[in-house]
């Protein structure tokens, strides 16, 4: 029994999957589980305005109380968390996807295309994204969580682009790429079969980072009232609590829980990112 456990531990040590990565993934898994299993235990109608008595503190029947519109806070969390995660994931996937394409194209083709990609990415990196996002979000007629994700994705690709481009420039000069060329592989085969696998640790690391900053951007916009207000999300819950001066009026069960969930999401993403970094970069693994 202990032999098996020891074997597993050695395997983990060998693969440098530290406790940090496991803890980060565990927190994220807990939040996903909460989003998946939660709806089985709460009634969706309780998320509607006037479903119950407003401004009730937490009680045995309503664990997190209600807001000033009479919505059940626990139900809001259960339905808001997956929406917020979904926006972060969509924006992250699109952002990293665009970043991968731009980085690969720029790094491997070079020339004028590379210059354009690099200059645009550098310029956008210097401008605070939230300022641009506020203008875009404020000028859209219709808003939904999907549109919100697209808006945030439009400014989530620059960092991945720079990272991937730099890696392509480095990897394509390695001896084994020249050998692949000597073995008659085409430039496409070299790009996708030889260079791509070398980029995966970087793509994963920037995916985690991009999802994190996308969620942050989404929540920032929503807290400013620029989100899809008719939908249930963590950011919208914070917006409504601000509108009702929940902090001044002492309704801690209104603004507190969404902040705790958001903090947990960031903590999980951060630990996962650090853990992956150690996994992908062995030189960090043994640093005390």
């Amino acid at each position: 029994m202990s032999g098996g456990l020891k074997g597993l531990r050695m395997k983990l040590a060998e693969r440098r999957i530290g406790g940090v990565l496991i803890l980060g993934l565990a927190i994220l898994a807990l939040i996903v589980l909460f989003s998946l299993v939660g709806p089985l235990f709460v009634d969706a109608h309780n998320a509607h305005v006037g479903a119950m008595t407003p401004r009730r503190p937490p009680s045995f029947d309503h664990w997190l109380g209600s807001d000033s519109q009479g919505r059940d806070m626990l139900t809001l969390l259960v339905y808001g968390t997956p929406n917020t995660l979904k926006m972060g994931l969509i924006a992250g996937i699109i952002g990293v996807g665009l970043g991968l394409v731009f980085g690969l194209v720029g790094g491997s083709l070079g020339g004028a295309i590379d210059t354009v990609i690099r200059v645009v990415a550098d310029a956008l990196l210097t401008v605070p994204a939230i300022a641009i996002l506020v203008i875009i979000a404020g000028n859209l007629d219709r808003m939904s969580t999907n549109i919100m994700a697209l808006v945030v994705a439009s400014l989530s690709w620059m960092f991945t682009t720079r990272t991937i481009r730099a890696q392509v420039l480095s990897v394509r000069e390695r001896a084994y790429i020249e050998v692949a060329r000597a073995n008659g592989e085409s430039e496409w085969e070299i790009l996708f079969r030889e260079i791509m696998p070398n980029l995966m640790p970087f793509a994963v690391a920037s995916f985690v980072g991009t999802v994190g900053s996308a969620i942050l951007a989404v929540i920032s916009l929503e807290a400013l009232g620029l989100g899809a207000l008719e939908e249930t999300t963590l950011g919208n819950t914070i917006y409504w609590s601000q509108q009702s001066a929940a902090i001044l009026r002492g309704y801690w069960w209104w603004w507190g829980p969404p902040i705790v969930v958001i903090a947990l999401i960031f903590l999980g993403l951060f630990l996962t990112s650090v853990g992956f970094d150690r996994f992908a970069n062995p030189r960090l693994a043994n640093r005390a």
Partner: protein
Amino acid sequence: MSEGEANGAGAPILVVEDLRVAYDTLAGPAMAVDGVSFSLKAGERLGLIGESGSGKTTMAMALLRLIRAPGRIVKGRVLLDGRDILTMSVGELREARLRDIALVPQGAMSSLNPVMLLEEQIADGILAHAPRTPRAELARRIEALLRGVGLDPSVARKYPHQLSGGMKQRAVMAIATSMRPRVIVADEPTSALDVVVQRQVMQTLGRLQGGLGAAVVLIGHDMGLIAQFADVVGVMYAGKLVELAPVEEIIAAPRHPYTRLLIDSLPSIAAKKRLIGIPGLPPRLVDLPPGCSFAARCPYAFARCRTETPSLQSTGGNRSAACHLYPEAQALPPLGAASGEARP
């Protein structure tokens, strides 16, 4: 070699004619390969030897048309079975690489992709030429290739960092021979390996070459290693081929003064003597002075050597040397007869 041709012992598989490769520098083009010509028949082993910067590796890269900016092939032809590699279309070139002419690269450590399993890397070469190879056949070929280089087939499922240096070099040879090429260009295949492993690797290379009946161009700076492997030895100096001769003859009686000094600088177990290097340094390849590029270091040099560049000419039999001592001299005179001032 020209004699063999005359006897009709088979047409040459590789013919290099007046190959010139330059690297463009701010000071002007540096001629790294400067008018090299030779030919090889199937099954023949040519060893190209020279010191660092003599153009050996550039030459190897040019044979596969792998020269990239700032390098460029200025002129010449590399005929592989009559087809000029240097003028092929990109598609034809990709077909020819690995299938007709394969590279065993310098430094196996860095020649394997660190994030791919060995079997994937072997498969990539095969699939680049035969994309529809069925999975089962691919696995069978990979196993046979690994056995062919003396590796256990289980290493197919390993990453490069799990292999030793010698195993990596064997793996690289398995990839190079995966499409049964007719010419193998081996660029210092044993650099960074210890002597015992060097010997094993060279034996493996020899066995593979014998099995395929391929011609080999072995590039290196270790005279001992080249002498054991090659049938014919070519000596390069400052981008030029200065001597070409069968291996026994070149060791027994070198014709070119540079070859003589190169052989004299080898340690010998039989005769204990002080080791002597070759005084001076190779010339800069930009703006070469007129005359023989070895003249400044040559104990035999005379006036003509400093004004006129010697070209490779027959020195009897199937040997040739690029030196003004010939055709007047029958052999290289003993060193005492020359001025000898340049020796330390």
